[in-house]
């Protein structure tokens, strides 16, 4: 039983770590703000969730589990809202997505 939990936890952690790196590559390599916010907004929340679930499988006592659940809930609530507010503010300030203007240039 222990070994199963250890393996499942390892899978969650590795998957989460992989998603975080993917988000990092996305924020660096994507061409404009909106694609970048897409990359991080998606992978950040999912990656954080996976890593926290992986940690939850290893907790020594209940209090730690409760704290991890609080962190997970906060991440699930706050991250999308922050991303949403950011994208909305950017759109309102007149920052336009790249595709509209560069389609014909093949960018």
């Amino acid at each position: 039983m222990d070994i199963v939990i250890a393996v499942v936890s390892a899978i969650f952690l590795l998957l989460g770590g992989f998603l975080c790196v993917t988000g990092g590559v996305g924020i660096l390599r994507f061409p404009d703000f909106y694609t970048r916010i897409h990359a991080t907004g998606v992978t950040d929340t999912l990656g954080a969730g996976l890593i926290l679930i992986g940690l939850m499988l290893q907790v020594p006592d209940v209090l730690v589990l409760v704290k991890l659940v609080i962190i997970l809930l906060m991440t699930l609530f706050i991250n999308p809202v922050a991303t949403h507010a950011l994208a909305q503010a950017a759109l309102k300030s007149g920052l336009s997505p790249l595709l509209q203007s560069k389609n014909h240039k093949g960018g």
Partner: protein
Amino acid sequence: MDSLRFCNPKTIKEDNAIELLIDIVLLSFLVCIAFAIVRMKDLFAVIMLAGMYGLLSASFFVTMDAVDVAFTEASVGAGISTLLMLTTISMTGRYENTTRHRPMLALVVVFVTGSLLIYGTLDMPYFGSAQAPIQLHVAPHYINNSMSEIGIPNIVTSALASYRGFDTFGEVVVIFTAGVAVWALLMVNVQRRKNTEIDDANNSTHEQHFIVRFVAKMLIPFILLFALYVQFHGDYGPGGGFQAGVIFAAAIILYSMVFGLNTARRVISQPIVQLLTAAGVLLYGSVGIVSLLSGGNFLDYNVLSADPIAGQHLGILLIELGVGCTVASVMILIYFNFSGRKNDRELEEHKETT
């Protein structure tokens, strides 16, 4: 190296290696950010980088086992300092002048000083050595006797509030003074303006973000509750008055950003905040006076109750409460004054243009 070194030569063990690696990586990140800050002219970008710098140094403090320090840096760096800097540059201008005065001379001075300091570090005991002088003086006393003398497991809190209580009293007075000084510098006569006029300026920027308002409304009670948890759990885990005060203030600041400064001022009136600023310091000081009158030394909590341990618990609870009170109200006072000044200036400009 020479035999005067206070340590056994550092051997790199397996379990040690990963912590050492993380330590080196985090410190290198810090240096990268610091250099980027030097190069940048856009103060907004500089402040964003300073925010990252704070996050990184909190991570570093966690890896160095300084959980209480990391906690403080987390609450200060994430909550308050970025906001104060942003308020300031929104009043003083976003771009730095491109000319620097005498960069070559400054570089030479910096280079020489830095080389001397690095030469000085060569004589220092190695990092992590258990035989370094700093580890042998009073620290063993705190670690070994804290449980029997004070009776709380968090040694940082017992040293902060009891062993070095007088020190902390001084720090609280400094914070109080800084708060009063900011108030004196930035005070705006609120009554001068009609409330409706301020409300108009307030609401124009806030009414659109419905989702943000909703989530903030849900979040603020949690933050306040968490601040209280930090305040009263500080004896057993990381936390205490300083951290709790800053977190509490951050919740109020979030409220005033989302719902407007004037609304926040109606919820928490500034005169009460000013009163609480002084009340915290007075509470701290009066615990000292009471212990003095009961026949002990200043801030000697053993005499507060028949049982010395119970006395220590009571004393630490009270002075942490005083610290939390002062820190929270000073932070709120500072933010209210900064933000009020900004609103005032915007109203002036608005009037001039119309």
